[in-house]
């Protein structure tokens, strides 16, 4: 569908109509920060948010989810969770992270549980209106995204330009009624805004190109920065829990009250946590904080790149904000590796 114009009042009515018809999740104010939650009314939606505490990943891969049910006598059944929902107002870097997750969970062995949820999600992306202090999406090539969404919204002055890319997007947009085509001036302003985003979303500056990162890591395994920075690490795992491009999980069985049946669940796990590579008998394959800290950057910057073709960091800056020790920022780490090259 060609790009349309959406005035602010029409926008408001459209969101209200969507909320009546669908389960719509979008960024809302939580104290002085923002978080995705179910939208009760259009006024709660904050498309001017800078970044949310957790990324929308929680709707595609919840903190805990059921994989199968079992009985103690050995009957196993798949559980495919996931209900239709609309993610509204997703920033481009988070759209890019969802595309990475799609790739990760379909490559080699398709993960049917992830896909069961994913297929029911419609994404309404929204170009960034205010930048968070730690953001460096522009350095990672995710300040704007060419695809990966069903609908894209861009605020140009006093109106939105809205563009649908899929049948699911068209269906959502139909609820807005008949819309005018976006005029050349609005489209021109949208182009300008996309160019400006390359400056706006560079509050932290990575001193190399994203495609240089795997090579940089290749040369830096023994760099003193791993030890120096990780000396401050609490192994709390916050940096990986808030990350839209971290996908690791643990699996646990839970027996029900009847002691006969139960559920097998998977939950978020993180390679920064002490036990992550620990096996029976207590041997830990990444015993040192330094090893765990380094692994996070290698998995993101090199291993996943070599395997799936992307650097698993979209520059949202959430990890930097979450780390009380101030050592989780990829920009700061990569820049210090670059210093001694």
């Amino acid at each position, binding site marked *: 569908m060609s790009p349309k114009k959406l005035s602010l009042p029409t926008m408001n009515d459209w969101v209200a109509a969507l909320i009546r018809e669908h389960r719509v999740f979008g960024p809302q104010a939580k104290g002085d920060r923002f978080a995705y939650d179910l939208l009760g009314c259009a006024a709660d939606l904050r498309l001017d948010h800078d970044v949310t505490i957790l990324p929308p990943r929680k709707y595609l891969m919840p903190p805990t989810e059921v994989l199968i049910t079992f009985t103690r006598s050995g009957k*196993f059944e798949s559980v495919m969770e996931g209900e239709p929902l609309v993610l509204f107002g997703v920033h481009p870097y988070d759209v890019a992270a969802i595309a990475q997750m799609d790739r990760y969970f379909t490559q080699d062995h398709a993960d*049917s549980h992830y896909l069961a949820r994913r297929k029911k999600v419609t994404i309404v992306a929204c170009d960034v209106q205010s930048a968070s202090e730690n953001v460096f999406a522009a350095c990672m090539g995710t300040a704007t995204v060419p695809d990966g969404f069903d609908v894209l919204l861009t605020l140009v002055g006093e109106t939105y330009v809205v563009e649908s890319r899929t049948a699911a997007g068209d269906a959502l947009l139909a609820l807005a009624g008949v819309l005018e085509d976006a005029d050349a001036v609005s489209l021109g302003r949208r182009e300008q805004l996309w160019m400006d985003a390359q400056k706006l979303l560079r509050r932290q500056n990575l001193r190399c190109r994203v495609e240089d990162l795997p090579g940089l890591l290749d040369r830096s395994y023994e760099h003193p920065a791993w030890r120096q920075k990780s000396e401050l690490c609490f192994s709390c795992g916050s940096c990986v829990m808030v990350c839209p491009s971290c996908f690791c*999980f643990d699996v646990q069985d839970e027996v029900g009250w009847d002691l006969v049946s139960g559920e097998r669940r*998977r939950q978020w796990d993180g390679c920064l946590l002490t036990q992550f590579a*620990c096996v029976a008998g207590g041997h830990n*394959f990444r015993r040192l904080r330094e090893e765990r800290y380094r692994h996070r950057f290698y998995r993101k910057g090199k291993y996943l790149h070599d395997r799936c073709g992307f650097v698993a960091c979209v520059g949202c800056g959430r990890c930097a904000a979450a780390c009380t020790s101030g050592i989780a920022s990829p920009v700061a780490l990569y820049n210090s590796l670059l210093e001694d090259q």
Partner: protein
Amino acid sequence: MTAEALICSDRDLYLPQPATVVSKTVLTATETLFEIRLDSGEELKHMPGQFVEVTVPGVGEAPISVSSSPDRKDGFELVVRRAGRVTSAMHDRRCGEKLGIRGPFGTHYPVDGVMRGRDIVFIAGGIGLAPLRSAIHWVLNHRQDYGKVTVLYGTKSPAERLFLDELSDWSCRPDVTFMETVDRADANWKGNVGVITKLIPTAGIDAARTVVAACGPPIMYKFVIVSLYAIDVMDESIYVSLERRMKCGIGKCGHCQINGLYACTDGPVFNHADILRVQEAI
């Protein structure tokens, strides 16, 4: 989402198949041999060195190597060491009780590939004999496809030796060279004492003709590989099996990573040349 992704998403790789414990044989104080059959009646269709994820419903899952040869059509065997929650619960399962099985997963010893026609040296440390036994049985069942066959086995003490009948069978066979050693002897032990590497120089290995299939703890690999280098065995001719924490078995959970490699899908069996420069490997 691509159409391709939508199609292949139908199979749930996390769903275990129901299976039954057919028999249990105590091997040592901590290891028990389980004979297991899939309730579907189907064969497991594994290759030597591959593993399955075993579910004890309500307790959890553990990766366990298949110890029987693929030639064995009627069920398969696992050797389980009592190491923690899941493995202890397995030991407590009685014959006729149910387990869940996922897999087989991972890579295998190349018994159907580069090992054919070559001399084979199996090097087993401790419970490492369990996975290697699958390959040993296969090679002995198809004896004409291979050159000279040598089995080297090392345990900490005589009490930890597995499959005593089979060990004595191998030591009697004219077409197998079998040598073993224990780290610490007891009063009845008449054999070699010392680390397994001591067996390597005297085993009559012709490096140029040989493929080595090893399975044991990481520390064993460190020393074994040095000894193999000393007799000119090349990295490309050495296969090792590496163990890591595993949760999914299919390259998704991230637990088993060895730098950029996944022990569950790129391994557990690796060619030594492929892990030479992988810092976390050995």
